[in-house]
């Protein structure tokens, strides 16, 4: 038997500490409202058509809207220099511009800013000035309902999720986790305590999901990164990858254990981890390469999506080796009860000291 070169299992408490240090800021951020910044898919907003006299591209218009605080606006070309725009709800917006003196609404501010940058806007008849002598602004201005509508009353039980797709995604993930748990329990039935494998894989899955959501919660507070419909999909991808990765590592543990290698379960896990390290690294590296390629070339619009995938793939690979497998060992060696005992003993001790000191 080769002695383990690297004792990964022995350092498991350090790995837990790393995970906790990485997870806690995100979890704290999730507790502080607004928990995540939701994109325009999830809320009602405003929509309008805008047509310019001068040649204007979609990218220019998007940049222009970003400078007036609507970086998340969705812009679709609909013809020559004509665009269909969907934004967050504009403040004080009426479907008709107010007649007479009134404080400029956000709509007018944006109209003025865009006119200053791209020149006159024209209406359906090609005029730049309407019958009241006002410069032409947005055409067909209207409010619009959320693209993703709430259909499930999950908000009450899970306050950090919004509605519709997120709620459904969360319940889908809960169901999928249960199914994965049961399947792994069955699949690892030849090993002692098979349900631990299912549980550890699900814990790793939650670890990864909360890490990604947490990071986006922090980014939302710091640089206004928004949760879009695509982010939800990226999260599902991350979960799929996380479980896939955990299972591959577990499979090797199953093999090592059933071959009777290693004096203890921990040693067997350590051997398995070292043996699968190359594969774990290579698989995540190939995915990281693929995502980086998309990130560098794929354009701005899907950047959030790709960042979520990238973070997820890295943490997914990390968690299968440094969380899921270590939890198996901790469970086997009764780490948690021991930890509690130690904690309680220390508390007792402090209590004892606290009682003792005033007397002394």
């Amino acid at each position, binding site marked *: 038997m080769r002695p383990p070169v690297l004792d990964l299992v022995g350092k498991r408490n350090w790995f837990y500490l790393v995970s906790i240090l990485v997870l806690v800021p995100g979890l704290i951020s999730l507790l502080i409202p607004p928990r995540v910044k939701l994109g325009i898919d999830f809320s009602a907003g405003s929509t309008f058509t805008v047509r310019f006299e001068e040649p204007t591209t979609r990218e220019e218009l998007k940049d222009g809207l970003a400078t007036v605080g609507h970086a998340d606006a969705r812009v679709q070309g*609909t013809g020559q220099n004509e665009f269909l725009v969907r934004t967050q709800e504009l403040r004080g917006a009426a479907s008709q511009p107010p007649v007479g003196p009134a404080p400029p609404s956000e709509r007018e501010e944006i109209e003025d800013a865009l006119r200053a940058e791209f020149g006159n806007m024209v209406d359906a008849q090609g005029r730049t000035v309407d019958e009241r002598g006002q410069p032409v602004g947005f055409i067909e201005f209207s409010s619009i309902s959320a693209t993703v509508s709430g259909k499930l009353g999950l908000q009450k039980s899970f306050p950090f999720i919004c509605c519709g797709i997120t709620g459904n995604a969360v319940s889908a993930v809960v169901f999928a986790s249960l*199914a994965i748990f049961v399947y792994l329990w069955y699949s690892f039935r030849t090993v002692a305590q098979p349900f631990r494998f299912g549980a550890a894989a699900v814990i790793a899955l939650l670890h990864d999901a909360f890490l990604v959501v947490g990071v986006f919660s922090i980014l939302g507070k710091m640089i206004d990164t928004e949760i879009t419909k695509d982010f939800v999909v990226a999260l599902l991808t991350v979960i799929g990858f996380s479980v896939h990765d955990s299972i591959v590592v577990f499979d090797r543990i199953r093999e090592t254990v059933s071959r009777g290698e290693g004096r203890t379960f921990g040693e067997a896990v350590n051997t398995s981890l070292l043996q699968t390290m190359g594969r774990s690294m290579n698989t995540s590296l190939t995915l990281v390469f693929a995502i980086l390629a998309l990130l560098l070339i794929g354009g701005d619009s899907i950047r959030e999506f790709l960042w979520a995938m990238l973070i997820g793939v890295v943490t997914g690979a990390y968690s299968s080796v440094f969380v899921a497998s270590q939890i198996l060992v901790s469970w086997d060696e009764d780490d948690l009860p021991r930890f509690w005992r130690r904690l309680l003993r220390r508390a007792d001790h402090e209590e004892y000291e606290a009682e003792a000191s005033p007397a002394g």
Partner: protein
Amino acid sequence: MRRWWSRLLLLAIIGLTAFSGIVVWPSEPDRYLPDQIPWPEGRGIKMKLPTIEGGTFGLTTIERRAMSLGLDLRGGTRLVLAPADARIDDLDAALEGARRVVERRVNEFGVAESEVNRLGNDRLSVQLPGIDPEEAIDKIGRTALLQFCEPVTDAGGNVAVVRNGTVTYEGQTCEPQRDAQGNVVATAGAVEFLPWANDENDPSSNFIVWQPAKADLDGVETELTGRFLRPNTRVDRTVTPDNILGDPILNFEFNPDGADILESVTARLAPRQLPLAFFLDGEPIRGEDDAVIAPRVNQTLSAQGIITGLENDEAQDLSTLLNTGAFPVALVVVQQQDVDATLGDNAVRNTVIAGEVALLVIMLFMVLYYRLPGVMASLALVCYTSFALAIFKLVPVTLTLAGVGAFVLSLGMAVDANILIFERMKEELRVGRNLVVALEDGFNRAWSSIRDSNISSIMTALILYWFGNQFDESSIKGFALVWIIGVLISMFTAIIVTRTFMRFIIGVRPLARRLGLFAADLPDDVRRAGRPAPAVAGGAGGGPAKREER
């Protein structure tokens, strides 16, 4: 025998890849590939697939010019719908109901990934990916009023016919225009009354003048329409004793009121076996031969009935229309326009190029790290990509950004399966196994983890699909579908395709002699020997030797 089988498989794989390549080849290759090379232009695919209709063999043509892409990648059509009459009592509820009907309808027709929003207080905005406006209006705009119609007859029981002209029907019904005396007027030609003898001399159903089939319901003369139908209309196909799929049969079921009316109507028609026709939005439903479908009633019917003679697609569409129901308010299209992709005009191009680069990077990595097996895995990856894209194009699966995400994930899993196999193979080679044994062992021993991880992936994807379906979230549904297809194909390519390639390579002696081509860091003695070194194996691992004993 086995060798033959391998060769045959290799040929089949090459053939299938070439076919998939032709299917997915873009019509404007310069957009996606380096334009220094004059790439041939793809022409899409036009295939004749054998079908069996009514016991005879036929051919249906499938034509696919472009990938089916979502609103975010390619854009589509935008329609603004408004109620024809805005003075109804509860406009808000009616519009919300209409929004749900539109949403159901666009998704049931298979045009997934569409968006339906309330626009202001009194309008709906619908965005549909990749179809032209007429098609979109046709899909959404139909009010789905199904009417059951009987022939107009005179006092003598003769059937009204217009042979060289037309009769105009009122609105979207089968009520013909009549003059003050109640006689049917033809816009051209003349209305004749011909006897109905229930034989081959009867006038063709195409010429018959129809009127709504009515009967007394609780003292009120009531027309028999689709509103009495239960929403469980479905299409069945009979199977002949020779196991051949027969004609589609549209089954419908009435609620008790509808059953009463149908009973009275059929009781009236059955003695003379007069026909019954079906009008949808004022147009008679026609069969494959373009003749008006008008089955003769030969018995009294009540709750249930069938319509036969439809083409399969038509039967499915009609069934959907009847099940999704009519609009609570009549809608008119007030605006229609083409819209570009929500991710920008260049979204497709950027995504495709990024995908190509990603694929090349992965291939480069595999070749550098795993050498000759890496080359084989890269070839298998090419097979994988072309198979998957060909299936997406042929089904068709509407690809959105979410789908691309799922595709990248399945790409990763396809590579992962190969990495697992090769790592195992390297381990076997390192302890001095011979190449053939190492290869087979690598595949066999990696199988359990490939199986478990892929089964759990498919399970997760099925649950996601079910949820997406349950709550009309087409992006989750699309994601799950692409993931399932991807995982299934990746299992095929990563295992069968790679193994076939590897077996072929191992059969080429000059390559098989150089073990260094298969693994980089082999112990010197193993590499030099190029054959099993049992003594080394026992010393280094211990494991493999033990396994052999078992």
